C-alpha cells in the first residue's frame, strides 16, 4: 500500500501501565490502534518500539507522519514516586519553613493523625535570602548579589540539579526574583531556575511556593525526556510537528513545555477528558442525533480509579489548579497544591479492582482500596481473595469469563463466587443481591462525586450526556446515568484506549486573565475594552506564532463577577457585542440567573462588581474525519449477536437471558435495545432494560436512557 500521499497523525499516550498509540489518516479518518506495556525506567523506549510496530502494522514509513501529539503521566509520577533529582530553594528570609507548615489545615474533622506529603525540597536544601517586597510591590530590601551567589554555591556543592526561587509578593513585583535569577545565571549558567513570579504569579505564598518547587523538581526530568524523545524521532526520520498535551487540554510545543514543565503534570488525564470532547464533536457532525455541542461528562473508569470531567461546548472544563501526590488517597487537602490551569476533574477510588467489604456500621462499602492488577480481583486467579467490582460484574453476567481482554485472561467464576459469597454471608444477603449491591454502591459513589463536582461548577447534571471510557466505564455508565438523571450516554468505539483520540483533538490554545476590580454600575467600559483588547491581541499573537491560520482562531470572553462585598466570584460568559456596546444590564441579568441556578436564590438589589476578565483563544481543532465503519439500512442488530447469556439486573427483574453483541460486527444504523451487552477487546458495555442505543457511523453507540 502506498501511503506517501496521505497525511497521518499520531496520538501517543503514555500511562502508568499502558502506552497507547493511535494513527489517524486525514483523508478518510482511517484509524490504526496499538497498545503496548509502558517500560521503566525509560518510558520513551517502549513508546518508540511501539511506534515502529504500529508503523509496520499500518505499512507506513515514518515520513508519512505529519504530526505527533503526546500526553504523558511522566511528570506527575515523578512527584508521586519522588524520582526527581536534588532540588534547591531560595526563599525570603524568615520563611524557610513555609514548605513544612503548608496551609496549616486539618482536612478531616475527626482524624487526629492525618498524613501530609513530605516537601519536595528538604530543609537542608533551602536557603533564606535577605530581601523583601511589600504587598503593594514596593521593594523594601533588594537582593545582595554576593549573598545570593554564596547561598547558591552551597546548594550547588550539595549537588542540586535545579533551583526554585520564591520571594514574598513576587506576584506583584518580580524585580527581586529576577535580580537573583540574573545573578545566578551569570555565575551558574547551567543551573535551571524556576521563578514563582513566572510559574504561578498569584497571591498566596503556600500555593505559589508549592507550584514553583514542583516545577523546579520535574524540570530536569522533563528536559532530558523531551530531548531524548525528539532526538530519537529525528533519528528515525520523523520531520513533522511534535506537540505535547498540557494540563489544561491544549497542545503546545516542546519549547513551551520546557519553559513551564509543571504544565505537563495533568497531561494524561487531560487526554482522557479531551477524548470525551472528541466523541462529542463526532456526534455533532451527525445531525440525526440532534446533538449540537451539548454538555458532556467524560467518565473514565479503570482498574483502581474513576475520573469525571465536565466538557462544556467542545472544551473540557479547566480549573485553576489541583493537588498532586495526595498523601491520603483522593482526599482534598492531603496533596501538594499546584496552581496552574488544569482540566478540572474529580477522581475517586472506584474501579474494577475496588474491594467490597462490610464496614463498621454493618453496611456494604466499596473502595477506595483496590486489588489493582496484582493480585487483582479474585476471578483473575492470581491469588486475590477479596471480592471486587470485577468479580461482581462477572457473577452478574456482565462480563464474559472467556472473552476478558479479548480472551487473553480467563476469569475464574468459582473464585469470584467464593469471594462474593463470603461477603454476602457477612451482610446477610443472597450472593446475587450482594453482587448487585456492589455494582450499585460503586455506581452511587461515582454518581455522588460527579454530582457534587458538576453542581459546584454551577451546572445541572440532568442536562449531561455521559461518555464512558476506560476498561470498566462502559459497564457502569448506564447505572450512573440513571443516578444522575442524565438522558443519554455514549459507548465510544475503542473505549479502552480513548486518550489518544483526545491527544489528536487538542487545540493550540492560550488562556489569559487580568484582574480588573470595578463596580458594574459605574464601569468605565472604555478601560475594560482596552484591557480585553490587549488580552486578545496577546493571545492571538501566541496562536499565530504557533502557525495557526487567523481564520481558525476562536475567542471566548468571560467576566468574573460577584456582589459588592463578597469574597468569591462566579464566571459569566460575555459576548464581543456586549463588550463593545457596554451592555451592563445584560451582564447583570446573566449574573443573577447563573447565581440563582447555583445557590437557589439571589438578591437583585445588591450592587455587582467585576473582578476580572478572561480571554481564551484557541485554534479550532482539525476537521472531523469522515465516517469509518460500514452502514446498514436495517436496524436489526442480530447479525452482530454472538451469544445469549443470563444477566442479573436487580431484585425486580431477577435473571434474564440477554443478547451479547460483538462490537466489531456492529454496523452504523443498527439499534440495540437493553438489556444488552456489547463486547470488545478492551471493554464490555452494558445497556440496562429499556435503553435504546443507536450505532453511529464512527462505531459509537449513542444510548437514550429508558424513561422512568
Amino acid at each position, binding site marked *: 500500500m502506498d501511503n506517501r500521499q496521505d497525511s497521518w497523525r499520531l496520538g501517543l499516550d503514555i500511562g502508568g501501565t499502558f502506552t497507547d498509540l493511535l494513527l489517524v489518516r486525514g483523508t478518510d479518518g482511517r484509524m490504526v490502534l496499538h497498545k503496548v506495556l509502558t517500560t521503566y525506567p525509560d518510558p520513551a523506549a517502549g513508546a518508540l518500539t511501539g511506534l515502529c510496530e504500529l508503523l509496520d502494522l499500518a505499512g507506513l514509513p515514518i515520513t508519512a507522519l505529519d504530526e505527533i501529539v503526546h500526553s504523558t503521566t511522566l511528570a506527575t509520577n515523578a512527584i508521586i514516586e519522588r524520582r526527581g533529582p536534588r532540588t534547591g530553594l531560595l526563599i525570603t528570609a524568615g520563611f524557610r519553613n513555609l514548605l513544612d507548615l503548608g496551609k496549616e489545615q486539618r482536612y478531616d474533622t475527626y482524624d487526629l493523625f492525618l498524613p501530609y506529603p513530605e516537601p519536595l525540597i528538604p530543609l537542608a536544601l533551602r536557603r533564606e535570602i535577605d530581601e523583601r517586597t*511589600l*504587598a503593594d510591590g514596593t521593594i523594601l530590601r533588594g537582593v545582595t548579589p554576593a549573598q545570593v551567589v554564596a547561598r547558591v554555591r552551597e546548594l550547588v556543592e550539595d549537588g542540586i540539579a535545579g533551583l526554585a526561587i520564591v520571594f514574598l509578593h513576587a506576584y506583584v513585583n518580580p524585580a527581586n526574583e529576577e535580580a537573583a535569577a540574573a545573578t545566578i545565571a551569570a555565575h551558574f549558567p547551567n543551573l535551571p531556575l524556576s521563578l514563582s513570579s513566572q510559574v504561578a504569579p498569584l497571591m498566596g505564598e503556600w500555593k505559589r511556593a508549592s507550584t514553583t518547587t514542583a516545577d523546579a523538581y520535574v524540570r530536569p526530568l522533563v528536559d532530558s525526556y523531551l530531548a531524548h524523545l525528539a532526538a530519537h524521532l529525528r533519528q528515525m526520520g520523523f520531520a513533522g510537528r511534535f506537540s505535547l498535551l498540557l494540563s489544561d487540554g491544549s497542545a503546545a510545543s516542546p519549547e513551551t513545555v520546557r519553559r513551564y514543565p509543571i504544565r505537563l503534570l495533568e497531561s494524561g488525564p487531560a487526554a482522557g477528558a479531551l477524548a470525551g470532547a472528541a466523541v462529542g464533536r463526532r456526534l455533532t457532525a451527525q445531525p440525526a442525533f440532534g446533538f449540537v455541542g451539548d454538555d458532556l461528562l467524560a467518565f473514565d473508569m479503570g482498574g483502581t480509579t474513576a475520573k469525571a470531567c465536565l466538557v462544556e461546548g467542545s472544551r473540557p472544563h479547566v480549573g485553576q489548579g489541583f493537588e498532586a501526590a495526595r498523601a491520603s488517597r483522593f482526599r482534598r487537602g492531603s496533596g501538594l497544591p499546584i496552581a496552574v490551569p488544569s482540566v478540572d476533574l474529580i477522581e475517586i477510588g472506584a474501579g474494577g479492582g475496588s474491594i467490597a467489604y462490610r464496614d463498621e456500621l454493618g*453496611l456494604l462499602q466499596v473502595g477506595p482500596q483496590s486489588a489493582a492488577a496484582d493480585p487483582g480481583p479474585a476471578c483473575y486467579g492470581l491469588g486475590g481473595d477479596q471480592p471486587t467490582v470485577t468479580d461482581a460484574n462477572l457473577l452478574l453476567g456482565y462480563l464474559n469469563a472467556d472473552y476478558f481482554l479479548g480472551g487473553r485472561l480467563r476469569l475464574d467464576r468459582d473464585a469470584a463466587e467464593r469471594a462474593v459469597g463470603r461477603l454476602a454471608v457477612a451482610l446477610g444477603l443472597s450472593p446475587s443481591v*450482594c453482587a448487585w449491591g456492589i455494582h450499585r454502591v460503586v455506581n452511587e459513589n461515582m454518581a455522588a462525586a460527579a454530582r457534587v463536582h458538576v453542581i*459546584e461548577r454551577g451546572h445541572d447534571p440532568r442536562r449531561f450526556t455521559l461518555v464512558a471510557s476506560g476498561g470498566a466505564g462502559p459497564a457502569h455508565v448506564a447505572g450512573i446515568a440513571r443516578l444522575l438523571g442524565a438522558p443519554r450516554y455514549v459507548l465510544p468505539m475503542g473505549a479502552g484506549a480513548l486518550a489518544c483520540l483526545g491527544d489528536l483533538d487538542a487545540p493550540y490554545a492560550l488562556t489569559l486573565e487580568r484582574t480588573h476590580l470595578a463596580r458594574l454600575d459605574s464601569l468605565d467600559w472604555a478601560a475594560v475594552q482596552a484591557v480585553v483588547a490587549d488580552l486578545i491581541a496577546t493571545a492571538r499573537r501566541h496562536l499565530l506564532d504557533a502557525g495557526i491560520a487567523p481564520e481558525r482562531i476562536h475567542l471566548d470572553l468571560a467576566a468574573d463577577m460577584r*456582589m459588592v462585598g463578597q469574597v468569591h466570584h462566579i464566571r459569566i460568559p460575555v459576548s464581543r457585542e456586549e463588550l463593545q456596546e457596554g451592555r451592563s444590564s445584560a451582564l447583570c441579568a446573566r449574573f443573577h440567573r447563573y447565581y440563582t441556578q447555583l*445557590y437557589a436564590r439571589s438578591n437583585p438589589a445588591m450592587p455587582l462588581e467585576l473582578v476580572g476578565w478572561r480571554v481564551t483563544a484557541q485554534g479550532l481543532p482539525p476537521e472531523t474525519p469522515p465516517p469509518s465503519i460500514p452502514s446498514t439500512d436495517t436496524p436489526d442488530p442480530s447479525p452482530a449477536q454472538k451469544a445469549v447469556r443470563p444477566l442479573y439486573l436487580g431484585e*425486580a427483574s431477577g435473571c434474564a437471558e440477554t443478547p451479547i453483541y460483538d462490537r466489531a460486527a456492529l454496523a452504523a444504523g443498527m439499534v440495540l435495545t437493553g438489556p444488552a451487552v456489547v463486547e470488545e477487546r478492551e471493554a464490555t458495555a452494558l445497556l440496562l432494560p429499556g435503553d435504546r442505543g443507536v450505532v453511529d457511523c464512527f462505531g459509537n453507540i449513542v444510548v437514550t436512557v429508558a424513561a422512568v
Partner: protein
Amino acid sequence: MSNPVLDPAGLQIIWSRLISISEEMFTTVWRTAFSPVVAVVQDHGCEILDAEGNCLAHAPSSMPAFNLAMPVVTRAVLARHPATTIQPGDVFVTNDPWLSAGHLPDLCVVTPVFKADRVVAFCATIAHANDIGGTNDDRRPRTVYEEGLQIPILKLYDRGQRNDTLFAMIAANVRGPAEVIGDLEALVAANEVGARRIAALLDEYGLTDTAELSAAIQARTEQAVRHAIAAIPDGIYRASTQFDALTEPLTLAVTVTVCGSNLTVDYTGSADEITPGGINATLSYTRAQTFYTLMCALAPHLPHNEGSLRPFTIVAPEGSILNCRFPAPVNLRLRSGWHLNTILFAALAEVLPGRVMAGSGFLAAFQARGKRPCGSDFNVPFFAGGGQGASEGRDGRAGYIYPSTAAGMSVEVFESCTPLLIHSKAILPNSGGAGRWRGGPGQRVVVSLLPGWKAPVELLMTPDRMTCPAPGLAGGKPGAPVRVTVNGCTPAPDSTFYQAGYVTLATPDDILVWDLAGGGGWGDPAHRDLAASRHDREQGMIT
C-alpha cells in the same frame, strides 16, 4: 422497589447522598459569604436533621463544635413552633449561647423541609458572624448583655417574606453590617439548596418522610459507637489540668466511667463560673466539645449523627465554668472548652494509647485593628497553629490547628489588607515537648508596622497556654508555653495586654515577637530513638 432503607446496600447509598447534600450546603455558604471568616476560614457548619430535630448527617468539613448545637437549636424551634404551625418559606434564626454554639457571634439558621404539606426534615447552618456588637474587650464583661446582640428564636423569613424589621435590628447593632447581613443570607441560601435536594431524594426513593431512614441510620451508628466503647476496659478514668484562665490558673477535672457500652463524662471538680471575662462554657458548648473529642479517639471514621451520641452521658455541675448560668459572659468560651480534649485524652491515655494525643498548642490568633489613611477601618484576623501533642508511636506536627478545622492565614493575604509586616514565621526549635515521641514544635511570628506607617495598630490577642503549657502524657514533657514580647519585654500586669486584651504597635520600631505553644511529648524522653533525635536536629526541630 423493595425497601431501600434497610438493606445494607440501599442504606449505604441513600446515606452517602445525605452527606453529599450537606457538603453542597457547606460549599454554598462559603462561596456566597461576604466575610473572610466564613468565605476563607470557613468557620461554619451545615447539617440535615429529621422531623424531630435529630441529626442525620453533617458536612464533613463542618466546625466540630457546631455539629451538636444544631439539633439543640432545632428542637428548641420545634418546642416553640410545633411542626403543624410551621409553614413553607419559614426560616428561623437564633444566637442563644445556651442553645447554639456557646457565644453570640455564632448565628444558627434553621429551615424546614416539606413534603406533601408536612415537615419531614430540617436543614440547619451555623456560621461565625464577623461581628455581633457589644464590647471588643473580652476580658471585662460581667454578663452576656455586654457581649452583643442577643437574638432569641425568631423568624428571619415568614412564609417566604423577609423579616425586614429583624434584619434592620441586626444591621443597626453590628459593626460592618453589610458583611453580617450578607453572611446571614448565605446561610439561608445554603439551607434552601439542602431542602430542595432532600425533597428530590425522598421522591427518588419513594419515601414519604425521613422517620424510617433516621431510625436505621441512628441504630447503625449507635451500635458501632457502642462497639468502640465496649472495647475499652470497664473502669473509672480520671484526669485534671490547670489552664491559664484570665488572671490566674483554674482547674478542669474529669471522671470518665466506662461500663459496658456506656460512657459517662462528669466534670465535677472543675472551677466555678467566673466573671469578669467570658471564658465560661454553656452546657451546649461543653457537650459539643466533649463529644467531638471522644469521637476523635473512638470512632474517627464514622459518619456521625444523633445515634453516635446515645451511648454518652455528659454531666457538668450547674454553675461551673463548663455549665454556666445565664447571664454569664461567654464570648471566650473556647478558653475553657478547648482544654476538654486535653483532659479527656489524658484520662483515656492508659486505655487508648495511640488513639489519643498529649496536649496541643491550639489555634493561635490575633485580630489587627486600626484605621487606614483614608479613614476606613480594618479588622483582619491572623491565624496560625501551635504544635500537635505527641501520641504513642507518633511525633506531633508543627502548625497543627486544633480543635478546629480552620486554615492558617496567608502572610501575603494578611499583608495586603493591613499596614503590617510579618518579618518571619518559622518553626521554633526546642518548643515541642520532649518525650519518647516528641510534641510538635510551636512557631515564632515576628510582626511590626510597615516602615513609615504613622497610625497605631491594635492587635487584639488573649493567648492561651501562656502560664500552663500543653501537658505531656505517659512521662512526656510539656511543650513550650506561648510568649508575647514587644521590643523584647513581656507586657506588664497593668498593661493593656492583661487589662484589655490587646497590644499596640505605635511606631514601625515596635516589634512584636509571638511564640506559639508547642505540643506535649509522649513517654520518657530517655527512650527517644537516636535516629529520631538526629532527624529532629536536621529538620531544625531541636538544636
